[in-house]
């Protein structure tokens, strides 16, 4: 009898304690307005910085000599589950060695089909591509979503294939 009464009181006090714990968490949020996560998007366009892990689009990296690291191995094309990447390559004669070598002609990327799954970046053996942070992709024509990623006149950076 006494035991059950003590248990009852303990239950009530324990319940109150757990409720107060919850209120402490939300009380912390309301008293710290700096913790607010929401962004006022179009207004803060100039200062907006997307976080590092954000996946916006696939980009092919170029250095200052207009050289990229893509060997045209098509590992990304194979890895892509929905066929967003198409690599058109050609065999070019190397004047120094006299041998024909594979080089990419066009690295075609269909943004409209991409789900930003990151599998292409993981499969790339030479780290030629990575995820960009741009997310403003809205266009009026669907064909504008298909783009060629390698810049005109760009070459394979030396030493990538060694």
């Amino acid at each position, binding site marked *: 009898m006494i035991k059950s009464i003590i248990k009852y009181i303990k239950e*009530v006090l324990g319940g109150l304690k757990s409720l107060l714990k919850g*209120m402490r968490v*939300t*009380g912390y949020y*309301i008293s710290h*307005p700096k913790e*607010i996560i*929401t962004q*006022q998007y179009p207004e803060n366009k100039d200062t907006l910085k997307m976080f590092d892990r954000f996946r916006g689009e696939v980009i092919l990296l170029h250095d200052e000599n207009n050289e990229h690291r893509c060997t045209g191995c098509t590992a990304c094309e194979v890895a892509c589950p929905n066929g967003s990447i198409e690599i058109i390559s050609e065999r070019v004669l190397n004047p120094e060695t006299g041998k024909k070598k594979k080089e990419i002609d066009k690295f075609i990327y269909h943004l409209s089909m991409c789900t930003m799954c990151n599998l292409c970046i993981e499969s790339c053996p030479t780290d030629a591509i990575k995820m960009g942070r741009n997310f403003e992709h809205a266009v009026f024509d669907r064909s504008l979503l298909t783009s060629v990623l390698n810049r005109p006149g760009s070459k394979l950076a030396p030493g990538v294939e060694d």
Partner: protein
Amino acid sequence: MKFDIYDFSVLTKSIHESLNSMMGETAVMISEMVIVGIIFLTLFAVLGLILVYVERKICAFFQQRLGPMRVGFWGTAQTLADLIKLLLKEPLITKNADKFLFNLAPFVLIIASFMAMAAIPFAKGLHAFDIDIGVFYITAISSIGVVGVLLAGWASNNKYSLIGAMRSGAQIISYELSVGLSLLTIIVLTGSLQFSEIIESQREGWWIFRGHIPALIAFIIFLIASTAETNRGPFDLAEAESELTAGFHTEYSGMKFAFFFLAEFINMFIVAAIGATVFLGGWMPLHFGALESFNAIMDFIPPIFWFFGKTAFIIFLMMWFKWTFPRLRIDQLLTLEWKYLLPINLINILVMAFFVLMGWYF
């Protein structure tokens, strides 16, 4: 007398006399009623607009969001825009609904909260209906609101509405008991049911301080039970979105829906006002016995600000509850009332009576 500067009865008396000099007795009574009615209608609209905005903002801040920000400065005109939208919406009535009861239900609900509002003392002399059984009157009137909810659920001819209404009925009828008993705990101290006398008895200090432990327990129980009585979260079973779409007001649209929405917020205000009046001294300023200069400074703040400040504090607490606690199931809800709040309340009222008998309060 300390509060003479802020005494509204001078103003009301002068209005009464000037009206008396203009027209006959019956005409004076009618015109005064019209004036009070218009004031309350305005108060209703303004309170509704402000409370909806505050609720949305506070909810957002509790959840680390910003809330409405687009319409007006910091979204202040958002509720006005919503009101215009609701006014322009088509008032749909479903084919199999009982048209008369369907249209009547929102008015029953809003009239109940309108009548309850009349007995609330806003400041000294600013009191529409100072009846000598004020607390009893308010508890009686506010339980009429459940009739509106039940009518809405029944007349909609919709299973969600009916289930929601029945839940709401069970909930309000159960929690009415706890609200009444927790108020009675303080009535034991005041010895009067009249609101003006309850406030007058707190001139030396608010009952929540003077009644110490039992008063504090009563206050907590009052907060829980009144949150449940106004059908607010975590007790919002009547309109449980996840399982009942919108509960008893599923079939309502446009202005009639707005009435339900408004009634919920006005009921929250009324409940908070009663809590502020009974536990926190209504429009009485904060006084500590010995500190004369502190008391004088507190007297300087007009009573109407004290009243609205205390009410806002309790409303804030209720919003804090709503946006923190997880929702209860219907069986948990009734267990909480009948197995916890009611027995604790009954023992608490006995303890309080004993304390009053022995004079163990300040």
